[in-house]
């Protein structure tokens, strides 16, 4: 009877785990949860999840889980053996097994005794990685029941990871196409310094700081990347002019914000991109109602995304002024925004930017380094 009761408990746990893992949409969160649950349920000192990088033919650990990323050829070690054979491997004494790769222990400072490794197989037969549990907490080596339990857990973990990977793939494909559009547009306008990709990163950082949800942050990040699309229809001789514009040229230049919005509207985006034109059209609108286009929304009526793009854009524009003004350093550009708080900028957005200055500066450094690599 006791055995039956524990069987019931085990099945109920699996059902609960499926709901918990599959309701997470970010791969990081699925891995974090799975990682913690594996060790807890298996009463192990530690668990590991290695994912298969098919292109490189390597297994790798996820950075967020404990120490740094560990990468090794997909056949290597006991994890590699489990992946290759598709079968679980129970090892009572790791250091006595010739397949054991002690490099990971020496990297993490952990001492593995006994371990169970199970391939992450999904229902179409594909193997997407390996899970391992190390050292039973009660000091005894793992046994056959442990292997069976880990296999059951692994089937749930595998499906949850695979699902989150699909979401991530789709989102990255969207990132890729947006990046290609932005890069193409900037081939005309940029003077060595990437603009929209950096504004996009700033938008993401500020959006997170303001506590927005994943999807909202993604939309603002995408809108931030596409905010200057309208410059396509501004002639080179205005767009690339190195000195202040004349009164006749200025409206042509300023039309780009609205033009970006109209272009995006014509693109008829669906899904998460639907309606991002509203975030873009008003990125030069001032919080107090000024700016361009004239008229239209003010203060909280301006979409939050547009207010975030405005601040992100302004930091960049003060660092790399277009028409002969004196360039500012990052800190100076950021601080200079304090003056326009409440009139030009939404104070909440500027405060969020102040709060995350270190992250913003790091994104700037990364973007410059990427540009350096491209030029080299």
């Amino acid at each position, binding site marked *: *009877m006791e055995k*039956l*009761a524990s*069987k*019931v408990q085990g*099945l109920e746990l*699996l*059902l609960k785990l*499926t*709901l918990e893992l*599959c*309701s997470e*949409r970010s791969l990081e969160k699925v891995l974090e949860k799975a990682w913690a649950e594996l060790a807890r349920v298996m009463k192990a000192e530690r668990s590991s999840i290695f994912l298969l990088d*098919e*292109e490189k033919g390597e297994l790798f650990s996820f950075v967020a889980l404990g120490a740094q990323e560990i990468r090794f050829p997909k056949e290597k070690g006991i994890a590699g053996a489990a992946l290759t054979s598709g079968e679980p491997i129970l090892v009572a004494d790791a250091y006595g097994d010739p397949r054991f790769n002690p490099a990971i222990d020496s990297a993490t400072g952990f001492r593995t005794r006994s371990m169970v490794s199970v391939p992450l197989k999904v*229902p179409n037969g594909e193997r997407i990685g390996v899970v391992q549990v190390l050292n039973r907490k009660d000091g005894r080596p793992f046994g056959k029941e442990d292997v069976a339990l880990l296999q059951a857990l692994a089937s749930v973990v595998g*499906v949850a990871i695979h*699902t989150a990977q699909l*979401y991530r*793939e*789709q989102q*990255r*494909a*969207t*990132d*890729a*196409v*947006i*990046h*290609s*559009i932005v*890069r*193409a*547009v*900037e*081939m*005309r306008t940029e003077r060595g310094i990437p603009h929209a990709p950096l504004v996009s990163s700033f938008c993401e950082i500020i959006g997170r700081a303001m506590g927005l949800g994943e999807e909202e942050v993604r939309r603002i990040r995408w809108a931030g990347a596409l905010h200057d699309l309208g410059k*396509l*229809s*501004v*002639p*080179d001789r*205005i767009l690339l002019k190195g000195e202040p514009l*004349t009164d006749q*040229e200025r*409206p*042509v230049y300023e*039309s780009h914000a609205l*033009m970006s919005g*109209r*272009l995006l509207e*014509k*693109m*008829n*985006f*669906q*899904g*998460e*991109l*639907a309606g991002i034109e509203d975030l873009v059209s008003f990125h030069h609108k001032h919080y107090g109602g000024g700016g361009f286009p004239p008229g239209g929304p003010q203060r909280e009526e301006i979409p939050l995304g547009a207010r975030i793009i405005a601040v992100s854009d302004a930091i960049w524009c003060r660092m790399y002024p277009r028409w002969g003004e004196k360039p500012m350093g990052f800190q100076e550009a950021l601080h200079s925004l304090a003056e326009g708080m409440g009139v030009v900028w939404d104070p909440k957005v500027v405060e969020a930017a102040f709060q995350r200055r270190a992250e913003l500066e790091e994104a700037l450094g990364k973007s410059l380094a990427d540009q350096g690599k491209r030029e080299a």
Partner: protein
Amino acid sequence: MPREEDKAKERILRLEALTEVSLSLAWERDVGKILGLIVREASRILDGERTTLYLVQEKEASNGDGKTTKTLVSYIAEGGLTIEVALDQRSIAGTVASSCRPVRLEDAREDPRFDPGWDAISGFRTRSMVAVPMMNPWGECIGVIQVLNKKNGPGFTSEDEEILLSLAAHAALALENARYLERQRQTFQSLIRGQAVAIDARDHLTAGHTWRVAAYSVELGKAMGLDPRQLELLEYAALLHDQGKLGVPDSVLFKCGRLEGTEEELMRVHASRTKEILEEIRGLLPLPLKKMPDIASSHHEKLDGSGYPKGLGGDQIPLEARILAVSDIFDALTSRRPYREPESDEGALEFLRKEAARGRVDSSVVEALSGILPRIPGLREGVNGRLESGSIMGSLGEIWETARENDPH
């Protein structure tokens, strides 16, 4: 106590079945298949004669004020009738969805909320019933699962109800996840289709070119027996093939030379820009789309090695790129330019046949083109119709002209 032991064993069997189903549900990506799975498994695990699934749907009010109301719409695996009920206490399903609580009845016909009309139409005779809400992980009810007529017994038990509630939670999650993935796909597809608007905004002389080339390429691909994945890849590559035009300077794009009939320099510049940009994004593309940059940027390569940007030849040029090359030339020839009238479809085909004979384009693609030639006008009209009706581009040309007119020069 053997009686209790039997009960525990029976519970284990059902939990095992449920665990298996929950995994199948979590794995399934297709909404239609998920619905089928729910209906089938609910009847099987609960030992019921029939299962009806209701989904909560947002409906726009008929007075057209844009407001939406929620209703329940039935989904029955074997086709059959579609039932629509309001989310209120007047029906059993409506009660379950609006209260988010299960309902269990030994004889549904005695319940005032039961509508005997459906039994009369379908010929089914309802007796016992258990109906549970499908709660998603965020605490919203997105549907109702209703199992009818317990096969061996007077009615459904509280254990049945508990099992069905668990199945409903897994079903709701699977449905939400499949919809979420569909939304991600839709986001990507609408982006890659929509971005061609930007290319036309930059060079509206060739407006619609990108979509026509995509439409012709897909049709050619189908005629040549490409599988759905290859067709998808081909369509996306076609939609991106001129992206480099976005980065071509005005001096090249609006050069008088184009009026003399040569677009050569423009083509060379944009092809190498397309290649450069698409190379950069390769790392972000999922495995099935990794070839997209190669296909998109090889559409000016020639089989004899005389093309650009790489001067690839023969088998080095992927089949998809060879298809793209033929559609690209075909559309350029059959489109109007300020300096010449469009070539007829037959005339363009003749030109391509000569090119194939000279070993520059793939003759099997050109033959496939001659096979689909009767369908070309329809495809062209499809795209041009969308351009004119404004559903794709609308007043883009006008926007663009306004910008130029405002330009003091």
